[in-house]
């Protein structure tokens, strides 16, 4: 009987089990409300929650102190991808190939009939569209031109860059100058979006640029921005 009582005392309640997720803010609204209510009612539970918050902070601190992998890991990945067999064509292209195979299997006579019927269908469709347009009242519209949208030909290359934690502002400024680059967004997840010059680059030029950036001492990661 005593043993049973002891076991029940040791058995954690459902709310108690949810406390770590409440500390991390990953409970759904309903459970979060249940935990909040229980914390307001039960000082013992509130004390345990304070302990959990310390554990939570220490775990984040511990993980953040682990640093980041070197650029070698990414290079190894890219080399491995290069060695992978070429990808199969996407489904849309495969569908196109099936159509070609199907057409190739038809006899010339069948193809001629099919083409004739297709041409006839197009002429009928064109006639219907023409008739509908002739009945429209005369009007015109201008095409809109957005001055903000950059022309693809003028799109300057961009890259996502993570700087080494020890990089000083003067180092970063010098790097930006030497690459004729400017920071246009950041730092989301520690990544800055840089823009290089004001003219588009070929794929090879872009690859060379990224490779050069990756060699920089103060850069821990550089990838072309999508």
């Amino acid at each position, binding site marked *: 009987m005593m043993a049973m009582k002891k076991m029940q005392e040791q058995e954690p309640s459902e709310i108690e089990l949810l406390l*770590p997720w409440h500390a*991390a803010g990953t409970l759904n609204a309903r459970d979060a409300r249940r935990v909040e209510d229980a914390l307001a009612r039960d000082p013992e539970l509130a004390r345990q929650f304070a302990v959990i918050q310390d*554990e939570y902070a220490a*775990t984040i*601190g511990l*993980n953040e102190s682990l640093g980041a*992998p070197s650029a070698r890991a990414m290079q190894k990945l890219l080399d491995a991808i290069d060695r992978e067999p070429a990808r199969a064509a996407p489904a849309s292209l495969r569908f196109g190939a099936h159509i070609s195979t199907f057409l190739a299997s038809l006899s010339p006579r069948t193809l001629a009939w099919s083409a004739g019927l297709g041409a006839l269908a197009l002429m009928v469709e064109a006639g219907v569209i023409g008739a509908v347009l002739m009945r429209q009242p005369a009007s015109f519209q201008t095409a809109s031109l957005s001055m903000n949208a950059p022309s693809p030909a003028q799109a300057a290359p961009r890259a996502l860059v993570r700087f080494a934690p020890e990089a000083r502002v003067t180092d970063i400024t010098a790097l930006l100058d030497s690459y004729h680059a400017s920071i246009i967004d950041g730092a989301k997840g520690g990544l800055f979006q840089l823009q290089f010059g004001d003219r588009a680059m070929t794929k090879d030029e872009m690859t060379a640029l990224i490779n050069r950036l990756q060699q920089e001492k103060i850069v821990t990661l550089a990838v072309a921005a999508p």
Partner: protein
Amino acid sequence: MSVTQAASDDVLIGRIAQGDRLAMQVLYGRHHVKVFRFGLRLVRDEQIAEDLISEVFLDVWRQAGKFEGRSAVSTWLLAITRFKALSVLRRRKDGELDDEAANAIEDTSDNPEIATQKKDTSETLRRCLNGLSQEHREIVDLVYYHEKSVEEVAEIVGIPENTVKTRLFYARKKLAELLKAAGLERGWP
């Protein structure tokens, strides 16, 4: 992780499935640090952890077409990392593993005076977190650092949701024992 990022991760996976290297680099840039840290906490060797992340993202490159989007991409990445880390650990000799676990615990429990002298609660906490078993370390990290829900942890670790909750509870109890042995009483349990 925001809903927007989760959605764009899905888009990146779609592009990777089509062989888009750039999308791969962006996904890597977004997640490699957390994947590395999760792997490092499991294998406890920086070199191996670095090799691990290359393998994880290579798997993503190969398997992207099979990703169904039923879970967040980050959850998928952590599940692959865990699987690969455990494979590495299995390849190590059992004796080596036991020694490593013993050393980790020894660091905390055999030096209570030093820990008490320092009076640095957070430092002691960190050392005791390192002293937890691999099973307990991973669940603590997934919930507190990677901010995974009960359901997501269940998916990554491959155990029922109720087991996730009780495993974290007992991980915390073990942590309290280690802290007590290190001279730090926190009033729980």
